[in-house]
């Protein structure tokens, strides 16, 4: 795995862990003593620290270490999580997230602001830390995080030198291969400052045996640079295979230096002296390191620390993994990782790979439809049978591929727990967030784009929906407000509801405002629904005092626009004094659907199969009378004649059919000529030219290469129902 990929994996994992950390912290507020949660919380931070260490992301390691310390104390029952501590730890999580983003940004160094912010958080954490562990060393300005971390980890375990230490033993063939080690030194000088160089020719044999074309050079260098480790390591790319290269980052552990001394061919005491002379180690550090090497129990750290010792080593040198102490640490990390894997059995796949797959499957569906058509025409029974099997398999592949993109909506919902917590504190209202149907799945692309509108609705509900406690009390409602998020599947779409038990919409006030703004005429008669929908108009707000969070109505137009861009609809249900619900309906996927194919004259149309309730033959008499409704199972069903709707040429066939479709609880009958059955439909968007076309939501390509239009069922039902109402009224 190359470093860049590893880095990306780290970033994804870290964000995943931080998200879980947040969940655990919120869970702890209600159950502060839950052992499993405490363990999981500790583990999440610990794992971030561990992985960051592997990549030498020092700021994260230092910061996470302190957080981990506090969490360790909590886990050991030395303190418990109260509101303030939870808030502080949440901020710490955010800070780690920001540091991780620095890493994501190709290893950029964190900004001074970020470090200052981290320092402030650490200061706050410090007040929780066991006084015994508190630093007695005066804090020096600059990087408080680093200083804290150092005192916290027992002071002398990391070397004080700010420099990289680079140890090189060139392979014998380096010169013959056309490389000159001098060029490395020259190039390093462009990356930073070479503080000291010690050249060793110890491997050079006696004069007689010395081959002037072989390379016997060894270098011990101290190097001051802000370059990333990867950059420095890449300098030696072309000699990597047969040379021994070890790069120790600034403030590496003493044990790493001791290891370095141990693995180099030269005499240990000579190298130790060399490191001290070059300033890489202080004499005290060397002495301590050697003492620990001889007697591991003398190490001033226990239990967790071996894992800490692992930091930076794996990448620095694979060769040192045989050491027992590191082995133990690696095992421990592996255990943690496996545990995590068991908890979350996921494979990270790049989104564009998935998109390519889905596109290919789309093409496959179309191609297979074409092949089926040809098989039909050929009239060969065995071929038809074979094609039928292929079609069935293709259908399953399509289903499976789409399933890959489905993610539980919890991905969006879960973030609202934090939003709710922060907001209720800020607004000084007690609000419960209840989440239902979090496991409901929908397309990843839809999820990504629905987050913001939902956030807006949740904020609205909390800020303006839920009344202050005294007003609620006066209205005879419980003081604690409830905001409910709900999601479920309904005829091929997903329904997301955001509801609150607050004051509901003020019908009168909305109408007043709408009149004022000229949105409605004074003599216009509007249904409640129509009035509520007015809040989706741009810039519409009835809030008397607009807060920084939200003014009910402001931005609702953005919500609607976003939802409509996803081919969805938004509706409002409100009961004055009892609360309101915003209901969003979205198609499950934006790529492929099971369609129902039908034809009018020579043109083919598709409706999503999920919306089809039943198909019936149209009575000849009704067809002749031109009536717009039929009696179906004792109910009135409005009819929409698609031939008229889309101005198709030609006379209706001898028999017409009615396709009964349903959406959002309402039904309508579409009158068509022929029913052609189920059809796997790959949705192609229509061009901008057709943007204003009502009743059509997209197009698809049939097996024979013809284009079929996909009907916009919600729009058509709306139209049929309106027509019926008008007829009834007229």
């Amino acid at each position, binding site marked *: 795995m190359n470093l860049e990929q590893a880095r990306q994996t780290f970033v994804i994992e870290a964000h995943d862990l931080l998200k879980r950390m947040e969940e655990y912290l919120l869970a702890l507020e209600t159950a502060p003593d839950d052992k499993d949660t405490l363990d999981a919380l500790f583990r999440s931070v610990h794992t971030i620290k561990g992985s960051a260490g592997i990549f030498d992301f020092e700021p994260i390691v230092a910061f996470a270490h302190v957080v981990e310390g506090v969490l360790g104390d909590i886990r050991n029952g030395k303190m418990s999580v109260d509101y303030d501590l939870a808030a502080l730890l949440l901020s710490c999580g955010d800070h780690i997230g920001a540091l991780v983003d620095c890493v994501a940004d190709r290893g950029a160094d964190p900004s001074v602001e970020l470090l200052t912010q981290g320092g402030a958080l650490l200061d706050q954490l410090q007040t929780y830390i066991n006084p015994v562990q508190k630093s007695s060393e005066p804090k020096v300005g600059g990087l408080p995080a680093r200083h804290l971390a150092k005192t916290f980890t027992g002071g002398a375990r990391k070397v004080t030198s700010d420099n990289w230490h680079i140890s090189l033993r060139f392979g014998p063939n380096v010169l013959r291969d056309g490389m000159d080690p001098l060029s490395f030194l*020259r190039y390093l000088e462009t990356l930073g400052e070479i503080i000291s160089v010690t050249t060793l020719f110890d491997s050079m044999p006696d004069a007689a045996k010395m081959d002037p074309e072989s390379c016997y050079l060894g270098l011990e260098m101290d190097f001051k640079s802000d370059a990333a480790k990867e950059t420095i390591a890449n300098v030696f790319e072309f000699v990597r295979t047969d040379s021994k290269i070890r790069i120790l980052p600034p403030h590496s552990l003493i044990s790493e230096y001791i290891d370095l001394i141990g693995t180099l061919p030269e005499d240990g005491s000579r190298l130790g002296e060399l490191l001290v002379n070059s300033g890489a180690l202080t004499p005290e550090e060397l002495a301590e390191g050697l003492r620990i090497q001889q007697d591991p129990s003398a190490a001033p750290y226990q239990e967790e620390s071996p894992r800490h010792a692992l930091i930076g080593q794996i990448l620095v040198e694979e060769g040192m993994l045989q050491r027992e102490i590191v082995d133990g640490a690696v095992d421990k990390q592996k255990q943690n990782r496996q545990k995590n894997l068991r908890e979350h059995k996921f494979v990270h796949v790049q989104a564009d790979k998935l998109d390519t797959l889905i596109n290919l499957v789309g093409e496959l569906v179309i191609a297979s439809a074409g092949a089926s058509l040809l098989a039909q025409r050929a009239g060969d029974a065995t071929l038809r049978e074979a094609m039928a099997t292929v079609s069935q398999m293709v259908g399953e592949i399509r289903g499976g591929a789409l399933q890959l993109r489905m993610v539980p909506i919890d991905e969006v919902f879960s973030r609202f727990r934090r939003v709710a917590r922060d907001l209720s504190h800020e607004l000084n209202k007690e609000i419960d967030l209840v989440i239902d149907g979090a496991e409901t799945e929908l397309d990843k692309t839809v999820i990504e784009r629905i987050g913001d509108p939902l956030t807006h609705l949740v904020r609205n509900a909390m800020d303006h929906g839920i009344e202050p406690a005294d007003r609620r009390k006066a209205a005879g409602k419980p003081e604690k407000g409830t905001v409910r998020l709900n999601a479920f599947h309904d005829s091929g779409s997903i329904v997301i509801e955001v509801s609150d038990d607050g004051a509901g919409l003020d019908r009168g006030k909305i109408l007043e405002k709408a009149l004022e703004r000229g949105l409605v005429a004074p003599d216009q008669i509007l249904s409640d629904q129509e009035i509520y929908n007015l809040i989706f108009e741009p810039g519409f707000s009835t809030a008397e005092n607009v807060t920084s969070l939200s003014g009910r109505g402001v931005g609702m137009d953005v919500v609607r626009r976003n939802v409509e861009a996803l081919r969805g609809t938004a509706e409002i249900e409100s009961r004055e004094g009892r609360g309101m619900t915003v209901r969003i309906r979205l198609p499950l996927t934006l790529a492929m659907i099971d369609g129902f194919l039908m034809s009018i004259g020579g043109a083919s149309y598709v409706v999503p199969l999920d919306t089809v309730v039943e198909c019936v033959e149209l009575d000849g008499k009704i067809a002749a009378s031109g009536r717009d409704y039929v009696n179906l199972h004792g109910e009135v069903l409005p009819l929409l004649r698609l031939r008229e709707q889309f101005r198709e040429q030609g006379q209706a066939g001898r028999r017409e059919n009615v396709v009964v479709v349903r959406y959002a609880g309402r039904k309508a009958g579409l009158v068509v000529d022929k029913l052609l059955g189920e059809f796997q439909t790959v949705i192609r968007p229509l061009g901008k030219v057709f943007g204003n076309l009502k009743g059509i939501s997209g197009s698809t390509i049939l097996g024979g290469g013809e284009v079929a239009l996909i009907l916009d069922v919600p729009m058509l039902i709306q139209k049929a129902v309106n027509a019926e109402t008008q007829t009834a009224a007229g």
Partner: protein
Amino acid sequence: MQIQVETHNGYRRLLIDGDINIYTASELKRQLLDHLVGTDKLEISLAQVGEIDTAGFQVLYLTKREAVKSGKTLHLTSHSPMVLKIMDLYNLAAYFGDPVVISRTRKKVRASRPKPKTKKTT
């Protein structure tokens, strides 16, 4: 590369003229060690050295090591700028122990990431 020999104050003085690099290292080694065997006091003037690389430098190092080992005297003199630079980079001026003018101000040089040049075929 050519080596002129002269004797001066009891020193055998070698004047190296030309490049000392991977291409001349074998020849350089042979000649320098031969001369070292033939005298107790050797002086090598590096004024006329053109290009020097690590291979050439290794031979100088070897010669010095052999001289010290056998209790002989070896001085390097009149270092050319290229020689000074390489001694400076490898920080071995002290090892040779000859008076040199070391420029402590390291100039920032333009350098690209090292990659193999033409291979030396043997």
